[in-house]
């Protein structure tokens, strides 16, 4: 039936309204309602085309409503059964309206038999009430008089919808009502209205045409508001908001009293009542209406128009800021809308156009408002501050030991602290153990972080961040470990026991340094990766490794940087991969310390200068600085070296040790990959031997050294880049830290 109605009434542009109405109907789930919906739809649509006519009708209806309010409620309430009745009544009116409309529409001037105004008003109230009832389920207020045009559709709809009381109502006032309105329509709107009603009508019509939409909406609103007195439905709210916008585009602004007065005067309520409404709604007594106040006022107007008495004081639901975008029951809303639209008598002509739009928009608006609400909720709930902690573990899948490594760039102090702890722990643990033992992962990370940190003066965060950023899984661990180590160097209290696991990991990460060496020899691909990973770690490591012993001490002195460096190298050597290095180490340590330093420094310097791997370079620099500081900056810039890539700490160190002499001269190759380095490293062990051998050996060693040099250079560049990255991360982390700082204080 519904569909039929909808279809029947569809004038072509019902589609939308119909849809909405259909929706409403469904929600309403009332047999009667469907009809109303239909009528609503029709009304909505009709008004569009018949705006002219409807306007008058609407206005007339309004006036009728007003006048009939008193009469109708009493008389009709009894007659009209609950919602279904309303529908029927509507139908009757609808039919009448339809008839009327037809006539009116046809001619728009046809003079329908002038029905006693009294009749019409009653009808309108009836319809109104019916509408109201539906929406509010309990509104016996005057139903909104659907505009005349609406009636036509209704009539069409009616056939589809067979409500029992049609005949009753049809015979009733609707015709007269319609007639009245029709007559209104016939006569010039104003005149007709005047004729029918006192000047108020006139004013209303004129004003109303503009405001009729408003009124109709209001009426609708009223009806729907009755469901929950004083509760503003979403649709209503939307409507109010839209109206507010017409006066004041800024939703946060005010509507001045004069504008509001003008606006609400259109509702044709007595000034006294409007004054009272104002008093109620102007919560802050500032003579202007905010959006909330406006909605409250509007709501009150609507309610009043629907026959509700104004409360003595503002209902809670209308309190500013207490008005919720409630989702009034669909039924309510829909019925409200349905009521509006369907009540032929009621909806003022102007209303009809607006109503359809409103009705249509309301659902949308409601949805949108709901959506908005959800948005706000979402947005509000979106917080997501960096997720430090949570990210930690997941960040390094590989790291079995998951130090609470914060995700990269997570400026979580906590992480950093943890890392620090770890570091310290690791440092503690590690210092004793051969530096090489440090997990390869850590080395890189640690190096990076540590290096960064060192640069930062042991800013844990920085280090962490850097390490985080670095965070390749193994690396992170390694880094954390290294960090810890460094911390241990720096902060003796580090709790985190040096994660032995990291070592194994580090074997990965450091594998970056150590493994890389191996891997380089074994798998070029890995090497590269390792190299990359290492570079950051390398710097610290190499340094430490270089001075493993001395470095170790240094870290203690140097606070961390050195520790890192010292530890890292130590770690590196510890790794199985270090085997290769061990030779180197031994080699390197011997006298390489200085070289290392120099190398490192130079490396760092060179790195900085030459390589993109800022991080690496920076690390190196940091490390170098650290080392330099500790040791004695004498060695700083060994010119040749700079270019040698920061191969995995141990590696580079070692290499440096070995190849320093060789590499230095050769430095400047950035592109060398760790693979090369690895190869070089691999070859390096032999270098010393070769060195000691004859020329061939020397040449071979030279070759190797060169290769190593290139590799180292590459490493250096990579490390530099890593260093840069780490630094960047560090900076970001610092920024985040600063941002978080205030919170920490909160």
């Amino acid at each position, binding site marked *: 039936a519904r569909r039929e109605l909808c279809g029947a009434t569809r004038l072509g542009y019902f589609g939308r309204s119909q849809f909405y109405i259909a929706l409403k109907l469904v929600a309403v789930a009332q047999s009667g309602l469907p009809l109303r919906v239909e009528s609503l739809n029709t009304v909505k649509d009709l008004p569009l085309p018949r705006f002219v006519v409807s306007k008058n009708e609407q206005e007339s209806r309004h006036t009728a409503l007003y006048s009939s309010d008193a009469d109708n409620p009493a008389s009709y309430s009894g007659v009209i059964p609950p919602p279904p009745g309303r529908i029927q009544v509507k139908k009757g009116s609808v039919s009448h309206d339809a008839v009327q409309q037809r006539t009116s529409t046809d001619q728009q001037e046809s003079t329908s038999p002038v029905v006693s105004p009294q009749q019409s008003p009653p009808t309108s109230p009836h319809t109104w009430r019916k509408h109201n009832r539906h929406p509010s389920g309990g509104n016996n207020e005057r139903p909104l008089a659907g505009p005349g045009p609406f009636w036509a559709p209704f009539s069409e709809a009616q056939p589809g919808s067979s409500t029992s009381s049609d005949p009753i109502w049809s015979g009733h006032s609707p015709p007269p009502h319609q007639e009245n309105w029709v007559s209104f329509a016939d006569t010039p709107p104003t005149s007709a209205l005047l004729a029918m009603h006192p000047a108020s009508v006139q004013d209303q019509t004129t004003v109303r045409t503009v405001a009729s939409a408003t009124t109709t909406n209001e009426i609708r609103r009223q009806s729907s508001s009755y469901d929950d007195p004083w509760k503003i439905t979403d649709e209503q709210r939307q409507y109010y908001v839209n109206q507010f916008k017409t006066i004041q585009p800024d939703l946060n602004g005010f509507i*001045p*009293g*004069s504008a*509001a*007065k003008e606006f*609400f*005067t259109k509702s044709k309520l007595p*000034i*006294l009542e*409007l*004054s*009272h409404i*104002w*008093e109620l709604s*102007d919560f802050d*007594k*500032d*003579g202007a209406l905010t959006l909330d106040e406006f909605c409250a006022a509007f709501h009150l107007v609507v309610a009043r128009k629907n026959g509700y008495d104004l409360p*003595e004081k503002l209902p809670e639901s209308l309190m500013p800021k207490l008005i919720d975008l409630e989702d009034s029951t669909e039924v309510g809303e829909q019925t409200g809308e349905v009521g509006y639209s369907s009540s032929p008598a009621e909806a003022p002509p102007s209303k009809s156009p607006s109503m359809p739009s409103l009705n249509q928009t309301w659902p949308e608006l409601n949805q949108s408002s709901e959506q908005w609400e959800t948005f706000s909720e979402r947005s509000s709930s979106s917080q997501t501050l960096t997720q430090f902690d949570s990210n930690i573990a997941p960040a390094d899948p590989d790291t079995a030991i998951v130090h609470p490594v914060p995700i990269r760039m997570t400026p979580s102090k906590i992480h950093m602290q943890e890392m620090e702890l770890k570091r310290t722990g690791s440092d503690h643990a590690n210092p004793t153990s051969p530096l090489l033992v440090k997990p390869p992962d850590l080395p890189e990370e640690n190096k990076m972080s540590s290096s960064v940190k060192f640069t930062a003066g042991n800013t844990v965060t920085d280090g962490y961040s850097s390490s985080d950023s670095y965070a390749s899984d193994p690396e992170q661990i390694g880094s954390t470990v290294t960090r810890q180590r460094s911390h241990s160097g720096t902060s003796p209290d580090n709790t985190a026991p040096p994660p032995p696991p990291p070592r194994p990991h580090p074997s990965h990460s450091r594998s970056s340094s150590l493994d890389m060496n191996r891997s380089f020899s074994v798998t070029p691909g890995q090497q590269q990766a390792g190299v990359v990973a290492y570079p950051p770690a390398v710097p610290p490591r190499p340094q430490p490794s270089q001075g493993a012993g001395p470095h170790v001490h240094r870290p203690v002195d140097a606070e961390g940087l050195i520790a890192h460096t010292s530890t890292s190298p130590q770690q590196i050597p510890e790794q199985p991969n270090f085997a290769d290095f061990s030779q180197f180490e031994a080699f390197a340590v011997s006298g390489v310390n200085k070289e290392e330093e120099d190398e490192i420094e130079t490396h760092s310097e060179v790195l900085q200068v030459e390589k993109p791997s800022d991080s690496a370079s920076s690390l190196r620099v940091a490390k170098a600085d650290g080392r330099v500081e500790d040791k004695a900056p004498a060695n700083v810039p060994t010119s040749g070296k700079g270019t040698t890539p920061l191969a995995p700490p141990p590696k580079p160190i070692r290499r440096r040790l070995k190849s320093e002499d060789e590499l230095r001269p050769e430095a400047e190759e950035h592109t060398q990959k760790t693979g090369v380095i690895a190869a070089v490293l691999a070859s390096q062990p032999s270098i010393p031997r070769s060195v000691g051998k004859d020329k061939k050996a020397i040449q071979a060693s030279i070759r190797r050294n060169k290769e190593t040099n290139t590799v180292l250079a590459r490493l250096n560049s990579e490390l530099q880049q890593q260093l840069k990255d780490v630094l960047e991360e560090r900076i970001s982390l610092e920024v985040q830290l600063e941002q978080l700082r205030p919170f920490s204080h909160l």
Partner: protein
Amino acid sequence: MADTGRAGQTLENYPLYIRSVPTENELKFHYTVHTSLDVVDEKISAMGKALVDQRELYLGLLYPTEDYKVYGYVTNSKVKFVMVVDSSNTALRDNEIRSMFRKLHNSYTDIMCNPFYNPGDRIHSRAFDNMVNSMMMQVC
């Protein structure tokens, strides 16, 4: 004190609002209020200048009659508030009177903020009524 009358009157001295408790003898109060307006005018004119200070707004006891006192208050817009209280009510102190006038004035300004209120109209504001009633209940 059983009787209290209030009246707000404009320059033209027509009452915008008048309320008395109890309702009997209202006419007497009305008359009293009206006559006291002369006293108010007298005081206002005596000032000669725009009165900004609330003290000046509060005119104080206009004159005591046999069994009631009349207090006056005038706003800057020459809206006069006259309060007649029973002399038997000794509990009412000057401060209280002042506070009551202040409340009246505030309520009146709230009314003025209402765009639907035309200055010079009778005051029908329910809020105002409520306020006045409560005040009078306090006093009575």
